[in-house]
């Protein structure tokens, strides 16, 4: 009995070009890479310099809460007096940094910008193998929800810093300067970034199967979902504002500029 001829094995279209895209697909990852690198350089410098981060009543968000005994006078809590080898910023930076590093938006940004996996859609990535977030170390991205709660604690502290900034340099309440405004905006942007986070969206209501049985959580989820649409924008603006706040306080503390007082 003769066998019917088999159809030839089908393969993908053999196209050698890495991509046939003609638009500037490389622009966005390049901008993101440059922005993130600049931020990392500034953060490293500002965290290690250990000076000019406090000018009463303003404290840089990078150094708050100041827990070590080598804090600037009046700036800290001295809760970890034995730990003086690290700067106060290095001691605490892991919390907010971990939140941003495991954030779903930043993951997209740095996977595209640095790991080039992929650099842009329909652009071949340069790696021979790919295991995604299934193995160490990237499986640790699953700790994001815990960093979210840590970030909330930092937000509370930085909000207190903003409230405390409604004082003058002598410590009297009921005053406000440009630095106060900078700190208030900083706290507001950090809350917007945290509350718009995907882990928050899941926690407030996303994990439910029945929205109709939980009307309040459904409303909270709807609100977070609206904010979540702008998570990328909040991620960038809040990060730049943290750095700007640090820079502003640094300039005031070093005497390079004078803090304009409103009242």
């Amino acid at each position, binding site marked *: 009995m003769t066998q019917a001829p088999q159809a030839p094995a*089908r393969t993908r*279209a053999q*196209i050698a070009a890495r991509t046939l895209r003609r*638009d500037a697909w490389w622009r966005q990852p390049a901008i993101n890479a440059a922005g993130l690198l600049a931020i990392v350089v500034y953060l490293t410098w500002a965290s290690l310099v250990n000076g000019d981060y406090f000018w009463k009543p303003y404290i840089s968000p990078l150094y708050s809460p100041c827990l070590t005994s080598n804090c600037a006078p009046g700036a800290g809590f001295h809760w970890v007096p034995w730990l003086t080898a690290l700067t106060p910023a290095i001691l605490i930076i892991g919390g907010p940094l971990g939140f941003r590093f495991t954030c779903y938006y930043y993951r*997209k940004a740095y996977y595209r910008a640095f790991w080039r996996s992929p650099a842009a*859609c*329909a652009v*071949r990535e340069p790696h021979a193998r790919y295991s995604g977030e299934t193995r160490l170390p990237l499986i640790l991205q699953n700790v*994001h929800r815990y960093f979210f709660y840590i970030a909330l604690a930092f937000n509370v502290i930085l909000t207190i810093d903003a409230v405390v900034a409604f004082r003058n340099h002598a410590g009297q309440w009921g005053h406000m300067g440009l630095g106060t405004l900078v700190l208030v905006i900083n706290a507001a942007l950090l809350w917007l970034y945290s509350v718009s986070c995907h882990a928050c969206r899941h926690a407030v209501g996303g994990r439910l*199967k029945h929205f109709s049985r939980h009307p309040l959580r459904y409303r909270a989820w709807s609100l977070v979902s609206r904010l979540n649409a702008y998570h990328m924008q909040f991620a960038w603006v809040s990060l730049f504002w943290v750095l700007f706040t640090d820079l502003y306080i640094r300039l005031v503390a070093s005497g390079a500029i004078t803090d304009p007082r409103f009242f």
Partner: protein
Amino acid sequence: MGTKVRMRVWRGDGGAGGLVDYEVEVNEGEVVLDVLHRLQATQAGDLAVRWNCKAGKCGSCSMEINGRPRLACMTRMSLFDPADAITITPMRTFPVIRDLVTDVSFNYEKARQIPSFTPDPSVGLGEFRMQQVDVERSQEFRKCIECFLCQNVCHVIRDHPENMPAYAGPRFLMRIAELEMHPADTADRRAIAQDEFGLGLCNITKCCTEVCPEGIHITDNALIPMKERVMSRKYDPVVWLGGKIARRPRRDTPKVPGGRA
């Protein structure tokens, strides 16, 4: 009388082939599929193109136009500079049958492996009432026209075909999410979403969302919420401890056997 445009169309059987240059007339208001049909009618009668509705609703005419995954029927010719040639290739992730037509059976095999809607057997036919807020959530996912552009663009299988047995792709991870969010569904697909359908391979770079012609927020509304649910099931020590204390048994629904090994 229209203008002439240069088209570079991938022609071939199986995987072997190459780009062939044509010059085709284009009229105002036309889309890429119109021009391919004119090419077929006037110069390349044997050109294979899959199409059906010409309205962006059937998902048949998926291809790559100047390197970007698109529906040919929804891509206006006015998008392109008439001085430049337009390059048209088949979807890269799937094997080519001929010219621009690919074999997308991978997707149907994956679809079959997903445990289907599993209502509570104690609820009788016609007894379950679903509220509008619950309907709306999965309504977005039901807009999917199965054009498989998201499957095509996903680098997990596009650049690494060796991942195809272990990865269902965004379209079917979205299907799992849709079922998981259904208030009348009782199956628990969280463990298999990670272990059998490869949710962990997704690194949420959002290309699926970028190319979706229906504008479904696949990453934000399906994949990330699903990742969060998987996190609770597999990686969250507090949830694990809570389950132990409350003695909540885990009832993972297994994958449906079959499909690719």
